[in-house]
């Protein structure tokens, strides 16, 4: 799904922020990117959404080679990759629901429809009843959930979560992690940067970054396709749960689902 091949990012003649990075994140997987502050985690995310261009190397998302993506298609790419920013980037003068529906404004969706979809997502992340509050009126965990709901608005193939538990207490951090895991279970690839080791299970996929280099790449014990097969088998034997899963995905989400492949084709 996400493929970095010998990617280097360097500003001028300074030491490279990223130095010949290589990794592959499989479709539908949940991968952690860990490393100390300044190790290049955020730079990797910014490269994925083409907020930065690599100095060298190749980045592909699915079939899409980012270097061949024309400038005018970058906004479309960004709508296909959900991002939870480290500083959340919520607009403080807009209500919770207005923040979540903001990206739908870009796509030209009508306000009533966008509002309905945003409200559904807020319900999904446990923020029913907070729609008309402003971000400043929410707790840290709630604000994080707003950012997650906004990242989910186009039902993206990939979610990049940059330190989504950075400023949260342990309990709230695990709640946010559970939320992201539940999203991952629906097939969305999650790539999460963190420096909180306690959140990571030994069987999780972990890429360790240090001074712009991948110093460790721990593959997940259960590969994503194995996960999927196990899940399929599980669903076969428990049809009720399958029904429940379908109903969990609001219709509007599937309506706005955007595939990265379509961007590559165009």
């Amino acid at each position, binding site marked *: 799904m996400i493929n970095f091949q010998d990617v280097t990012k360097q500003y001028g003649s300074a030491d490279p922020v990223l130095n010949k990075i290589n990794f592959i994140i499989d479709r539908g997987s949940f991968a952690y990117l860990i490393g100390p502050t300044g190790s290049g985690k955020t730079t990797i995310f910014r490269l994925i959404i083409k907020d930065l261009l690599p100095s060298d190397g190749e980045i592909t998302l699915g079939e899409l080679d980012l270097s061949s993506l024309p400038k005018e298609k970058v906004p479309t790419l960004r709508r296909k990759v959900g991002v939870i920013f480290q500083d959340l*980037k919520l607009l403080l003068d807009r209500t919770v629901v207005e923040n979540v529906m903001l990206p739908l404004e870009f796509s030209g969706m009508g306000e009533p429809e966008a509002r309905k979809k945003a409200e559904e997502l807020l319900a999904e992340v446990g923020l029913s009843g907070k729609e008309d509050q402003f971000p400043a009126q929410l707790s840290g965990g709630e604000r994080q959930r707003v950012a997650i709901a906004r990242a989910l608005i186009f039902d993206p193939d990939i979610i990049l979560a940059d330190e989504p538990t950075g400023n949260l207490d342990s309990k709230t951090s695990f709640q946010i992690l559970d939320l992201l895991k539940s999203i991952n279970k629906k097939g969305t690839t999650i790539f999460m940067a963190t420096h909180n080791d306690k959140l990571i299970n030994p069987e999780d996929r972990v890429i360790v970054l240090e001074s712009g280099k991948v110093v460790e790449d721990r593959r997940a014990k259960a590969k994503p396709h194995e996960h999927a097969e196990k899940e399929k088998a599980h669903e076969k034997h428990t049809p009720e749960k399958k029904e429940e899963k379908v109903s969990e995905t609001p219709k509007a989400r599937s309506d706005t689902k955007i595939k990265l492949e379509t961007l590559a084709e165009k």
Partner: protein
Amino acid sequence: MVSTVSKYIRRSPYQALSAAAIMGLTFFAVSVFAILTIVSIRFISYFESRPQLTVFFKDSASSADIKTLEKQLNDTGKTSSISYVSKEDALKIYKQQNKSDPILLDLVTADILPASIEVQANQAEDLSSLAQIVKGAPNVDQVVFQKDIVDTLVAWTGAARRVGLAVIAILVTVSTLVIITIIGIKITVRRDEIETMRLLGASNWFIRAPFLLEGLVYGLIGSIIGGLFAAGIFYYFSPALESFLRGVPIFPLSPLIVLELILIEMLAACSLGAFASYLAVLRYLK
């Protein structure tokens, strides 16, 4: 989009007021200039369409002198009419024109007003040859050509036009700079919001359009205010002007012409506002 622009304007009402005010001032000047141009064109056309000269006689001129001259002019075949205005007729005309000012009426008698003839030529080109005859006649005090009046008017309106255009050019430049500054401030204030929108997938057009529309709205409001204000002043002073210009058929100026003028100005103002905003967007939203 419209609600976004409306929100942007409401968030900084004083900036919006400044932008609309400077645009209003500019298009007030444009309106005044345009109305004066229309009036002066009508004024000049009126005189240009009347190939006429007026001959004033000395007090010593006898009626025989005047009749001889009239015959001479008639014989050329270049005149369409010649009308004699005696001292008494001149006094009547004077009294009619100044009936509201008794002091002026008391000061003037028929003796101090000259007798005259008004000669209508068939064509404007005939005026020079007729004037040669008149100047050679005895007891002629003064000859006044409509051409002289037209030339004077053209010179005056030309000067007024140059000054008007210079003032408008300055105001348009100032308006453009004010709009650029105001939109620039707004872009700077919303830099974080714009950055967030970009990262979430907003296109350049989506980000720029509200600013362009905002400039356009300032232009629209300014042109309406300026145009209506100028038209109001013009119609308020029309009766006085009409009386001052005595019989020159400039008035009434049709409201349709004024409306057309305001519509053209609205178009120009919207373009100016959007253009200034576009410059701001180019400068501050790279």
